[in-house]
């Protein structure tokens, strides 16, 4: 990729201050304690010999000798790449229309476009099957009217379809944040030189927003590569993450192969992250002028307006169908082999009313604490990587990103091994809700990290140099200059971490010690094991989605207000 703009290359600092070194060490200790060590207590088996326990690599040779694993590897790779393409097709129009044009309902679209990320476990799958499955509403109606069915949810294509819908918000949210950060003067300069319309977008706007797109796309790729819930819900087993999960949780819990796959997953994820870092390395995306409110928003002509609304509606209709299904399910009596439920009731909500307040409280506490930890760590790591020349700073980045690839169940067992029985200073066991928060924070750290990283990439280092020339200390510069300018990216990171942590299950299921510590996702799991629990489970799922949705709207509100204030001061 070549840049259209002759921007000065970023000058990284030549040396690190003691404060920066201490920060790096602190993060390293956190990652070592809560990610590397617990995972290592489980994964070391991958390198041991059967019968002796001696170090060996024969298990990795076995991996490449086994047809099933090779097939799984290529399937995972193919599905992830295709899901990135699918997610881009859904995300680009939404991000473009809402950021470039004066468009009514931008906040609403951004919020609604974010919802697919919040698909509560199990019950979301049921709702999708009822809508898009072989005998789901869509196919039953199609079959009735035209005599054919569309295999939305079959095989690898089904996985690509569902994953694109599920994870496209990663691209939407990061790309939108990046688009908002672009300096309007760049666009004006291009317009003065005669560029306009799609060419302007393609040559100027999109390249400048590249860090956001790459951040989102790499997250989609790695997440799809490591996701096991969707393939398993579609009964696709020959992909890598399901293979690791199936082995670790059944026969083969003592066998190295499951952990070998986990190692392969981690290596592949880190490689994908490193590649995406390489793609944006050596190119300067930062712009100097700030506080101008981003790109100018053009008014739409009437026919453009119709087209834009139509596009947005179509995309939203598609990506929110699972949630509509969930809502219907939560009010339905029996829904079986029919386009719509047999009857409607509110009794499911009555049933969960009493106990859900506890789940909601726990979920809010856990997810917001985890999101907060993630944003703090993510900002710190991004700062260290982009603004210092500390030896091994990339290691911090990769280690944190690797968290995405450690299967939840592996981390869950690792936490039990590492922290069960550890007592706090006042005698309460550590292995209570604190461990759940730490596990959630560790698993969701990559999301916040990518968002913060992209935000910092877009800030010109000369702003900080100016502050320091005026006598500000490093800390003061970070506090007064960097943090406010990164706010949008940090909030994007918080929201992603928070929302996904709120519906996380695989690691928490291992760590929940008592019902009073349980989050929403656990409550869902318990309900969704029986026929009578389907309606109440859906009701709880709706509550989870609403909860996260409201929090997202609130944070958008905060962003917009933060943006409005400096402008008012002009």
């Amino acid at each position, binding site marked *: 990729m070549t840049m259209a703009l002759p921007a000065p290359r970023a000058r990284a600092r030549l040396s690190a201050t003691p404060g920066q070194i201490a920060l790096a060490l602190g993060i390293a200790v956190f990652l070592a304690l809560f990610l590397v060590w617990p995972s290592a207590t489980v994964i070391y088996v991958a390198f041991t010999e*059967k019968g002796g326990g001696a170090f060996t690599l024969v298990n990795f040779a076995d991996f490449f000798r086994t047809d099933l694993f090779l097939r799984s590897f290529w399937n995972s790779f193919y599905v992830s790449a295709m899901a990135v393409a699918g997610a881009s097709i859904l995300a680009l129009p939404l991000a473009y229309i809402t950021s470039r044009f004066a468009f009514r309902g931008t906040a609403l679209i951004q919020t609604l476009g974010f919802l697919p990320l919040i698909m509560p476990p199990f019950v979301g799958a049921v709702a999708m099957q009822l809508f898009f499955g072989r005998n789901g509403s869509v196919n039953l109606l199609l079959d009735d009217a035209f005599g054919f069915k569309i295999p939305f949810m079959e095989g690898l294509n089904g996985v690509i379809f569902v994953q694109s819908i599920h994870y496209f918000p990663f691209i939407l949210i990061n790309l939108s944040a990046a688009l908002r950060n672009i300096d309007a003067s760049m666009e004006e300069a291009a317009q003065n030189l005669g560029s306009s319309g799609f060419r302007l977008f393609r040559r100027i706007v999109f390249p400048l927003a590249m860090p956001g797109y790459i951040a989102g796309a790499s997250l989609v790729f790695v997440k799809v590569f490591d996701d096991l819930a969707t393939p398993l819900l579609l009964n696709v087993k020959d992909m890598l993450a399901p293979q690791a999960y199936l082995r670790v949780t059944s026969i083969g*819990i003592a066998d190295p192969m499951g952990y070998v796959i986990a190692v392969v997953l981690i290596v592949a994820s880190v490689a994908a992250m490193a590649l995406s870092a390489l793609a944006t390395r050596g190119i300067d995306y930062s712009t100097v002028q700030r506080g101008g409110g981003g790109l100018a928003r053009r008014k739409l002509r009437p026919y453009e307006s119709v087209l834009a609304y139509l596009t947005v509606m179509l995309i939203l209709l598609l990506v929110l169908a699972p949630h509509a299904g969930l809502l219907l399910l939560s009010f339905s009596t029996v829904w079986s082999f029919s386009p719509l439920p047999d009857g409607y009731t509110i009794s499911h909500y009555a049933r969960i009313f009493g106990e859900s307040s506890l789940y909601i409280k726990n979920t809010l506490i856990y997810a917001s604490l985890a999101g907060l930890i993630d944003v703090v760590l993510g900002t710190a790591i991004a700062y260290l990587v982009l603004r210092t020349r500390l030896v091994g700073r990339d290691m911090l980045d990769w280690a944190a990103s690797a968290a995405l690839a450690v299967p939840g169940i592996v981390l869950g067992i690792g936490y*039990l091994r590492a922290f*069960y029985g550890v007592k706090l200073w006042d005698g309460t066991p550590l292995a209570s809700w604190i461990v759940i928060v730490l596990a959630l924070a560790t698993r969701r750290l990559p999301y916040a990290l990518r968002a913060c990283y992209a935000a910092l990439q877009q800030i010109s280092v000369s702003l900080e140099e100016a502050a320091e020339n005026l006598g500000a200390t490093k800390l003061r510069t970070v506090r007064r200059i960097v943090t406010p300018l990164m706010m949008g990216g940090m909030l994007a990171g918080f929201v992603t971490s928070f929302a996904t942590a709120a519906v996380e299950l695989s690691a928490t299921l291992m760590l929940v010690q008592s019902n009073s510590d349980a989050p929403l996702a656990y409550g869902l*799991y*318990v309900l969704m094991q029986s*026929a009578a*629990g*389907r309606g109440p489970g859906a009701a709880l799922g709706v509550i989870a989605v609403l909860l996260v949705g409201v929090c997202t709207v609130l944070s958008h509100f905060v962003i917009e207000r933060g943006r409005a204030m400096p402008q008012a001061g002009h």
Partner: protein
Amino acid sequence: MHRLLMLSLCAALVSSAAFAQAPTGKVTVVTSFAKDVTDPVKKAFETATPGVTLEVQNRNTNAGVKYLEETKSSNQVDLFWASAPDAFEVLKGKGLLQKYAPKASGIPEKIGQFPINDPAGFYFGFAASGYGIMWNERYVKANKLPDPKEWQDLAKPVYYDHVSIAAPSRSGTTHLTVEAVLQGEGWAKGWGTIKAMAGNFRNITERSFGVPEAVNSGQVGYGIVIDFFAFSAQASGFPVKFIYPTVTTIVPANVGIVANAPNKAAAEAFVEFLLSPAGQQVLFEPGIRRLPVNPDVYAKAPADYPNPFKDPRLNSMIKFDVAKSEARNDVVDVLFDQLISFQLDSLKAATKAIHEAEAAIAKKDNAQARALVAQARELIAAMPVDEAAASARETASAFTGGKQKGARQAELEQQWAVFAKERYAQAQAKAEEAAKLAK
């Protein structure tokens, strides 16, 4: 000093024995049962035993076993409560359960051919369940399919792509179903039946409840499930039906007291409650629908409730050999995964080719084509290991992890997978040839 210690220990023992009279406090149970099962039992138990609260930790069976294993150094769990008897065998083998002699009366020694309690006294059956076929009536009506009666029926061409099952490696109950077929029909014939059925599978889910869920919502027509999934779905209003085939078995769901239970007295009280008539009657709740092990309780059962102690069909079921099942547990699961789950596409392709060839032969008979189809069926049914080898220590030890030397799990799996893949491809080729001959 020593005497003093002994004395105080004795005193402690006496006082704890006195406590055993009136259990109090929190009793923690790890269970794989859904909320619809645990909630009514919790409510009834807490009413019957004032002062005790039941703390339910819901985990799937495998995760529960793993959890007890990982936390045994400072165990906080009193009870383990789940369906699959093999999970209890594993816990017993690892010394994670403790002995107890229930005082409850009126419970016979056996249900069908299966001992209700562990003969060694480590775990106790509290409810019985049988395996069978459930189906969605709307689905069946829309696709104009017949009602099946036996496992073999599901192998008929008409059921192609309409049947679902949980992987036995993922679901203790499905494992028992497969094992029941293998014990009922013998190793070679049993696998033949299972693979002929598997050729019609729509999918193989990774958790037990995935199958009834798919049948309930009408995504698949037929599911191979444990009975209470169907009964509780019926009780919730879903249009489903269920039958027990002749070759099946009734096995108990169990409860056991965990070794070093922090609240042993309350744990014992819970076991006694489950086995008491009051506890047994809770099983009739619409959300639970399991078969009590106390025959007298059936007097209060809802109408049309199956009674395994009276129903001749359920009583004549095969004798289930737990030791045999235990010895080849992992091998059967891995065989199913490698020959069926992970080869489902090629198995289905071969099966479809056979169905088409047979349809062609039915229209226009051809001896050579019939011979080819027979060969194709044999190729599909062929097994890479015979019964003796499956139970042999050398094979089984490949699946026990790093402790023993010998073949690695991945090596055996690759061998078996290649064995199946080649034969399914050959079978498909032969069936296609047969179809051409009969045209």
